[in-house]
């Protein structure tokens, strides 16, 4: 009987193998029924984390693209109107899951891919996209290694050397800080990179740099380390999940120093964690709410009318900078498709470097070295812990 079951199981296995193949190719032919109209379809890949450490941030970034897709669901390419379909692949914020998520998007027939939130996954998947000749536009991955030395990865945000310098200058100007405590996550390209660039600008000798391993819950010791070191600022550009715990510890230990962080912290997760607590938080970011009133009003309306979107945005209609960036990235992709006059990834890649777009986060153009966005200014915001809102402080450049 057992043997019989085994054979049966093996047969099922073989059958599913064929079913798997058949099912997938069937999907491809029936592609047109993905959309609501009879228009031909162009696919834009969304390579974002929807779970894991950066899940919250990735979802907010996707929101911007989804809203843009609602506003502008079609695009004219070489005289034909196409319906734009977003294809999603969750890279789970994990570098080892990234290549297969990337491959999924490639085999779904995307013309261009947007993403990801978090630099590590972008670096890990880069070669997979490269081998397939797929153009990718990084939305908020700020580590230089994402675009360095390749010709298929572009990005619309500023870079960590810039952001790190801005934050270091801000710390020196605003707080007359002479010592800084830097906390990054072990093996995380984003926080590790940003801390390194911050220290380069601030002076490595005056910094204490520490890293916590993945899965850390107890940040009290790190906060105690910062206190014992006698730092003037606490620099911790980590994921929002860890950030919430760090803020909690900082508040309960009464750490008397400002916390500085990068663009990931520009999120309502941080506001909710800090609300009503005795902490001082400053972040640099890409976009200031109120920068483009009609966009703000439109996306707020949409978020409030869509329960899933609202849940993905953390339960309120506060607009994260990454949503604005996602919105711009979508339009940049449409622009690229229009210029290319084709839905073939190869054709889009050929012209992507020259595409420009005037978005809600400012004018976007790529430089010719690595395909990075030309941006020279960042917004600095402070968290108002009594009202739970961001307060604009100033625009800061490198100098």
């Amino acid at each position, binding site marked *: 009987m*057992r043997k019989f079951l085994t054979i049966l199981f*093996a047969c099922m296995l073989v059958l599913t193998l064929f079913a798997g193949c058949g099912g997938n190719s069937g999907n491809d032919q029936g592609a047109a029924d993905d959309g609501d109209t009879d228009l031909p379809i162009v696919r834009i890949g969304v390579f974002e984390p929807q*779970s894991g450490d950066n899940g919250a941030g990735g979802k907010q970034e996707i929101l911007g693209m989804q809203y843009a897709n609602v506003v502008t669901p079609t695009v004219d390419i070489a005289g034909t109107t196409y319906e734009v379909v977003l294809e999603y692949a969750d890279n789970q914020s994990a*570098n080892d899951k990234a290549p297969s998520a990337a491959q999924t998007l490639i085999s779904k027939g995307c013309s261009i891919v947007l993403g990801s939130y978090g630099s590590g996954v972008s670096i890990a998947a880069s*070669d*997979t996209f490269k*081998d397939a000749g797929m153009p990718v536009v990084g939305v908020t991955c700020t580590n230089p290694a994402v675009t360095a030395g390749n010709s298929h990865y572009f990005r619309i945000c500023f870079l960590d050397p810039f952001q790190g310098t801005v934050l270091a200058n801000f710390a020196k100007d605003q707080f007359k800080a002479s010592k800084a405590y830097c906390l990054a996550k072990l093996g995380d390209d984003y926080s590790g990179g940003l801390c390194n660039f911050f220290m380069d600008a601030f002076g490595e000798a005056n910094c204490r740099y520490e890293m916590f391993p*993945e899965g850390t819950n107890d940040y009290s010791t790190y906060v105690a380390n910062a206190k014992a070191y006698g730092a003037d600022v606490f620099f911790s550009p980590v994921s929002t999940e860890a950030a919430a715990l760090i803020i909690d510890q900082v508040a309960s230990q009464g750490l008397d120093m400002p916390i500085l962080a990068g663009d990931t912290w520009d999120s309502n997760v941080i506001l909710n964690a800090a609300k009503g607590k005795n902490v001082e938080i400053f972040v640099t970011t890409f976009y200031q709410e109120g920068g483009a009133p009609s966009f703000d009003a439109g996306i707020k309306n949409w978020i409030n009318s869509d329960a899933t979107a609202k849940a993905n945005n953390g339960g309120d209609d506060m607009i994260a900078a990454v949503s604005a960036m996602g919105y711009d990235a979508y339009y940049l992709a449409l622009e690229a498709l229009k210029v290319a006059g084709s839905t073939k990834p190869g054709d889009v890649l050929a012209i992507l470097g020259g595409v420009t777009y005037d978005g809600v986060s400012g004018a976007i153009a790529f430089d010719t070295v690595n395909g990075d966005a030309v941006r020279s200014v960042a917004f600095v915001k402070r968290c108002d812990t009594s009202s739970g809102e961001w307060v604009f402080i100033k625009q800061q450049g490198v100098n």
Partner: protein
Amino acid sequence: MENKRIQNLTSVVFLLALFALVIFLEQVIKPTDTMAMLLTVTKKSAVYALVAVSMNLLNGFTGLFSLGQAGFMLMGAYTYAIFTIESERRDSVYYYFDQVVNVSLPETLGGALGSVGWLVGVLLAIILGGLVAAGVAYLIGFPVLRLKSDYLAIATLGFAEIIRAIFQWRMLGPVTNAANPLKSYVRLSDFKIGTGDAAINISTFVAVLLAVVCIGIIVMLINSSYGRAFKAIREDEVAAEAMGINLYKHKQIAFCISSFFAGVGGAMLAMFANTVQANNFKSNMTFEILLIVVLGGIGSVSGSCIAAVFFIFASEWWLRGLDSGRFLGIFAPGIFRNGFRLVIFSVGIMLVILFFRRGLMGDKELPYYVKWIKDKLTTQKPKAGEANG
């Protein structure tokens, strides 16, 4: 004797057919096709099959319950990557450190001997990865192999975690790039015949070939006198010792060989994944491999291979629709949302473990079942004839 020869011949024919199929598919499928996923998952399955078989050698054939697989894979992957990074891109990889190791085996040998040298360089780096893993296993073996069952399991699990922490330590950054990823080394997709657009891609074939060769070596080992000694230890340590088998020595041999192939598997995983980062080699990876071994059948090499293919194909490919709203033509984004794939997958595994206790193959191999089917068919034939008559 005659039987044995037929069996060997069948295996060779089967493997040649497999290679031919892989090469054929690789030429037909373009990276942007829907079926391109087939090649990706085939590569990953090859890696996991090798690692699962190496774990089975220890857990299934020698009866040593070890959970250190991820740690040994990590060492193999790092060693391989460090010695094959392109010299001109080293600076961009070791962005925050001054690298110490400045040898790229494929480049050095390739410069001297051309493409053959390049290939030898890659192979050397892979073997070096295996040797480093085996060497560390030898050292770990001294304290650990004296422990029994569960204690051995948690001790090896602990060593894997310690190894991971050491590789992430910033003081070792000039060698390991600390916790940052290594990249720009020789990858599977670098395996091409010819150059430019006319190049023939053989990356999947290379992965499958490497795995088959390594698994073949393990099978030969299992069928040797060492293999019989391992099985004796598994069945009864005391009796085995009484029979004159040096327990410690044989355990040490099994542990080192298993780790060697885990290291080679790690190197292959590095080649597959384009980047290597210590953070990815967590205990979860070991657990995944253990599940594959158990699903395939503890003590069955072909079981481990089949289970690896099934496991990777299902988790990375077939069930992906469960995550993105559409599965088998059913459109239900409310239920088929992110994470559903993993829920179904883990429930499936749970059911197999509860109701299919001995795994897919038990401790038998594929030929056993082939023969069983043949017997069944031949005994049934006369009956069918009777019915007709």
